[in-house]
């Protein structure tokens, strides 16, 4: 932020420092362990009176000198150059904090050079005692270099008390100083054996070669147990949160952890192999191979340590973006562009969004991400995201990926960054204009003879909009299934709800009659539900035509196998069902039609990649679905991708309870709603309903536009009833926490309530039981004084709008008021009258049944008593 940025692009992402550092540490550890190897081996030769060993040491010293003095020391300086170019702010911090530690290290470095030159160039000339002494001095100086550098490196990982007292010695002798010192020392001794192989296999005399190769194998293997013990100590010394981050919550480094676990024994095995008498044609390449494995071993450790430090460059003090933790809030408030010194733009405007985005990218992303390079390629990592999805991802980047720093900037800057990455780097766009709907002609309104008709048939769908995931090749959240309810009322001054002696049949419109040809659900049903489900039949056994099941006062056709695709594979989320009531003689008593809404316009692809499945507007492709599983596996440590490969598609509700499907889950995982909202809330905070409709099919410019009733027309969005995403997620997670699901706490810690001061202020709620209710705003059926209802929930499923009745206990609320999200008056986006067919049929208006004093619809006469609920006998308020 303080400095200009070196735009490495493809060579960025830490590639340069990784190459420089891995080579350097591999050689510099050899410079330490190899130093001990030299002097101890020389002593062995002297002690045994075997000059051939001493001669071998001399030859090995030349190799040692050429490697450590040139490549070792210059890559060390190279690391310094590199970090000062890639992260000058952190380099400056380290220089200023540890200038005298670096100075001391320089003193030892100088003594190393002098002693090594003397050691090599006086071989065979200086008396043994002094020569060995010079060898010991070299080793002592090399180890002391390690001593001080180790302190500085581990300070970055665990600054410990320095954070409080800013004391040089607290920083140097930080909490992991000693275990890391032992860890690195033992590793250095092992590397001495590994490098020793390289020269030992080239000894011409066979017996000596075998002896020295075995001697090197001993160097490799003998310290291993001590090395493992120090590794365990190192691990145990890490603060708990850091340990959990490295070993549990950072999927990106699992490969390095695995490599570190496997390569150690591989080296030991290699050491044993080398000890066997073998021809040089075998031992030479084997020695090279072992050196390469050693490099990978060392590299794995360094990657783990570096990754473990994230999202900081100096833990709890400075983020890897060079922004101090203490400055973060100020940067978020004032904006990165105005706080940074080296930017051409000081704020984001419509015109400079790409350029500003690039500048933000340079400061915040380039330190760790390349553009198209081999390390941390931003294109590869973000290719699945639309700009909007990316904006959400950036918003909560630090929650799902605790190794990423929180975004340091304003909302405008976040959008600019998402725009730059999404549009300029990846070429992905958000929807630029409203979806052109393939509208259909208005339905003919079923006939109703107000004078002669004996019956009124009222119907509704219980959800108003049912989401359906058509990704059943990979996984299944919501199966096809729309539940339609109906009440048959015998008209008269004292109307009667009829369920006995009549039959209610239903028939889905013809163009939706073969859903099995449209979606793969029926092919996968056996794998998903372990039952055979005939094609075009729903989970409850209902087909596309049939008879409704009578209940106490209501007829139900549960889970009709409707999908939102016509026979021509056109997306149409509002199929209609014709209901016919007839008596035992088959005489038709009443007929009506009702919308059975169902949509596959679920926006997983916004963040999980892939196109829409059907017609560029709806459906989840296998590409998108597979990425969802990949993310789940990566973040939650599951193996769902493998499971899907081996055993077929994954049924989400098998683990995650879903009351809407009567699925109990496995009792351990969060319920589906809490899990999904709880996880994503960390990302989609702060944009109100904008993010609701990224996933749910209610975008007013989308292909479904499910929210289509009077409340939308009055300007109320999702948040008025359901609350902001953050608050909604907190409410769900709190209930799960009450139910003993500890994982809820993990997610809760990532969420900051939107409209409440604290999490404690938000009431817990269980999905599908505790929902907002009309009467929370419409107190006593009066004009609302408040237009937000969050934090007031129905007590249980029986209180839900769709299940509740009027004061007579006979009529369900939606029978007169319409389906949820489509309460009368509603405007269907595809077919203007499809959601208001019954008001039109029975009253010739758009309003709830009985509104505008239309009591005669059922009562055949005007009424004076407010039997159904208060405030009913008046004209509809929002005409």
């Amino acid at each position, binding site marked *: 932020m303080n*400095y200009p940025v070196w*735009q490495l692009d493809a060579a960025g992402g830490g590639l340069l420092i990784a190459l420089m550092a891995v080579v350097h540490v591999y050689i510099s550890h050899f410079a330490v362990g190899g130093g001990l190897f030299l002097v101890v081996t020389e002593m062995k030769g002297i002690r045994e009176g075997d000059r051939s060993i001493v001669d071998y040491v001399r030859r090995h010293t030349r190799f040692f000198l050429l490697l450590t003095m040139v490549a070792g020391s*210059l890559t060390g300086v190279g690391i310094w*150059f590199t970090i000062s170019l890639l992260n000058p702010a952190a380099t400056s*911090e380290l220089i200023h904090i540890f200038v005298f530690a670096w*100075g001391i290290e320089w003193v030892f470095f100088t003594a190393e*050079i002098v002693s090594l030159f003397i050691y090599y160039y006086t071989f065979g000339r200086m008396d043994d005692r002094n020569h060995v002494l010079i060898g010991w001095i070299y080793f002592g100086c090399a180890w002391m270099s390690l001593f001080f550098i180790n302190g500085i490196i581990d300070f970055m990982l665990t600054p410990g008390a320095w954070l409080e007292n800013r004391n040089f010695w607290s920083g140097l002798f930080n909490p992991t100083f000693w275990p890391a010192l032992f860890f690195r020392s033992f590793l250095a001794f092992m590397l001495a054996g590994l490098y020793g192989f390289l020269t030992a296999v080239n000894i011409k005399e066979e017996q000596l070669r075998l002896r020295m190769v075995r001697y090197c194998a001993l160097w490799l293997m003998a310290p291993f147990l001590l090395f493992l013990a120090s590794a365990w100590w190192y691990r145990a010394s890490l603060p708990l949160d850091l340990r959990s981050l490295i070993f549990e919550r950072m999927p990106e480094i699992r490969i390095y952890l695995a490599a570190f676990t496997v390569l150690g024994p591989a080296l030991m095995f290699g050491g044993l192999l080398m000890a066997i008498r073998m021809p040089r044609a075998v031992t030479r390449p084997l020695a090279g191979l072992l050196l390469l494995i050693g490099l990978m071993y060392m590299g794995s450790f360094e990657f783990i340590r570096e990754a473990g430090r994230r999202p900081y460059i100096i833990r709890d003090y400075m983020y890897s973006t060079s922004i101090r933790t203490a400055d973060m809030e100020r940067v978020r408030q004032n904006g990165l562009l105005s706080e940074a010194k080296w930017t051409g733009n000081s704020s984001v405007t419509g015109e400079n969004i790409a350029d500003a985005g690039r500048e933000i990218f340079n400061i915040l992303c380039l330190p760790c991400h390349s553009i198209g390079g081999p390390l941390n390629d931003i294109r590869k990592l973000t290719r699945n995201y639309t700009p909007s999805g990316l904006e959400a991802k950036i918003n909560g980047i630090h929650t799902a990926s605790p190794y990423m720093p929180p975004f340091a900037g304003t909302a405008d800057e976040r959008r600019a960054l998402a725009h730059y990455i999404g549009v300029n780097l990846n070429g992905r766009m958000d929807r630029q204009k409203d979806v052109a709907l393939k509208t259909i002609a208005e339905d003919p309104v079923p006939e109703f003879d107000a004078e002669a008709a004996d019956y009124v048939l009222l119907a509704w769908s219980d959800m108003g909009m049912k989401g359906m995931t058509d990704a059943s090749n990979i996984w299944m959240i919501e199966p096809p299934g729309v539940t339609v309810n109906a009440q048959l009322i015998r008209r008269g001054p004292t109307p009667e709800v009829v369920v006995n002696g009549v039959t209610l049949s239903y028939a889905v419109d013809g163009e939706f009659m073969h859903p099995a040809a449209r979606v793969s659900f029926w092919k996968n049903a056996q794998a998903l539900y372990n039952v055979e489900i005939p094609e075009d039949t729903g989970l409850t056994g209902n087909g596309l035509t049939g008879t409704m099941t009578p209940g106490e006062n209501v007829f139900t056709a549960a889970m009709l196998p409707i999908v939102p695709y016509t026979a021509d594979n056109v997306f149409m989320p509002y199929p209609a069902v014709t209901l016919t009531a007839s008596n035992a003689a088959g005489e038709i008593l009443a007929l009506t039609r009702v919308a059975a809404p169902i949509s596959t316009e679920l926006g997983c692809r916004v963040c999980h990649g892939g196109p829409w499945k059907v017609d560029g507007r709806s459906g989840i492709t296998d590409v998108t679905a597979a990425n969802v599983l990949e993310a789940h596996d990566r973040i939650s440590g599951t193996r769902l991708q493998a499971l899907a490969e081996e055993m077929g598609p994954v049924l989400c509700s098998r683990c995650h309870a879903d009351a809407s499907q009567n699925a109990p889950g496995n009792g351990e995982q969060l319920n589906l709603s809490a899990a999904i909202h709880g996880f994503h809330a960390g990302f989609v905070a702060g944009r109100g309903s904008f993010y609701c409709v990224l996933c749910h099919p209610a975008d007013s410019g989308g292909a479904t536009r499910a929210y289509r009733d009077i409340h939308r027309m009055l300007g109320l969005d999702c948040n008025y009833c359901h609350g902001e995403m953050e608050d909604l997620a907190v409410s769900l997670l709190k209930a799960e926490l009450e139910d003993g699901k500890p994982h809820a706490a993990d997610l809760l810690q990532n969420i900051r309530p939107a409209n409440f001061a604290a999490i404690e202020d938000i009431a817990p709620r269980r999905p599908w039981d505790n929902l907002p209710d009309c009467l929370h705003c419409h107190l006593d059926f009066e004009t609302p004084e408040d237009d937000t209802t969050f934090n007031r929930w129905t007590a249980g499923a029986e209180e839900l709008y769709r299940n509740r009745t009027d004061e007579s206990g006979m009529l369900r609320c939606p029978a007169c008021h319409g389906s949820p999200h489509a309460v009368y008056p509603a405007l269907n986006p595809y077919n203007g009258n499809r959601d208001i067919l019954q008001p039109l049929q029975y009253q010739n208006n758009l309003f709830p049944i009985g509104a505008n004093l239309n009591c005669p619809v059922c009562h055949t006469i005007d009424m004076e008593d407010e039997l159904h609920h208060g405030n009913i006998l008046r004209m509809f308020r929002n005409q």
Partner: protein
Amino acid sequence: MDPSALIPATESLQVPWGWFQFLLVVTLFLHMLAMNVMLGTAFIAFVNLLRRSGEPDPLSREISGKIPFTIAFTVNFGVAPLLFVQVLYGHFLYTSSVLMANFWILVIFLLIAGYYLAYIFKYNYEPLHGGRVIVFGLAATVMLAVAFFMSSNFTLMQRPEAWTRCFDRPAGLLLNFGDPTFIPRFLHFVTAAVAVGGLSFALLYEFRHRRGDREAAPLVRSGCYWFSFATIVNFGFGFWFFGSLRPDVFDVSTVNGILAAVLLLTGIVLGAVSVISAMQFRVMRALVTVLPTIFIMILIRDLVRTAYLKPWFSVSDLEVVPQYSPLLAFLLFLTGGAVLIVWMLRLAWRTIKAGEVQS
């Protein structure tokens, strides 16, 4: 754009800036000496080989054996001043380094290449035959390139007004060509290195000559010629460099200006004396005068930086949050290290006396 808005904030010091300034000047002096010997002798060996079409000669053979040592100590002695300059001027140096990052990081790879070329030269002097010119030419070129980039960075760091150029092109590709001091400064420093390189081997052969090596005398003279000629030429480059500097550097109405002027005059006089001494083949006297000259030039170099940065920054502005124990530890280790090194060198010297060590 106001360049002052681009200057990064920096961190506090643990001890007053004078400590770092002192350590910077002293260690830079060591680095400059080693660098001059390295670069100068490499250049001279290359010219010698070139003149003889690659045929072996005693001087280039001698230098081939010593060059890895001089590179090692040049690098090593470069680490300390680079550390201390970052403490005082890091926020300027990091900025200029990033602005020329592609070239700056190249320095490391050039150094590695140069170092290994020097070892190839050393261990394969005879078998290389005609390849000697190529190998050593490459090594000398690499060293010159490193010096060129160093000069660019250390001049760019003191010119924040030039930093705004980075907005016209991606950061990482700037060199300080817009600075009129850059080229004469580079030439002045490189020519000085050639002179000191000549004097260094004159000194080496002077010791041998005193110990009875009759063949050493011509090489003493040769070294003195190289020193004298290069230094005379360098007076020219020096005046060019002087003329290119901003007038305020030597503004005698300021303390810094007076100091710089006095030091410059002293340096010129000492330089002239050293040339006269070398032309008389009085190597020790030349050495005694040239060492303080180099030290004076380093001080002037520092005063130039102070003057150039004056509109933006002064080291006395740096906040001090005292912590003296790390300094004390450093001084103890430095003393101990120096004693240890001296002891080792004496031990090695005794061994050398017993039989010339072939490096």
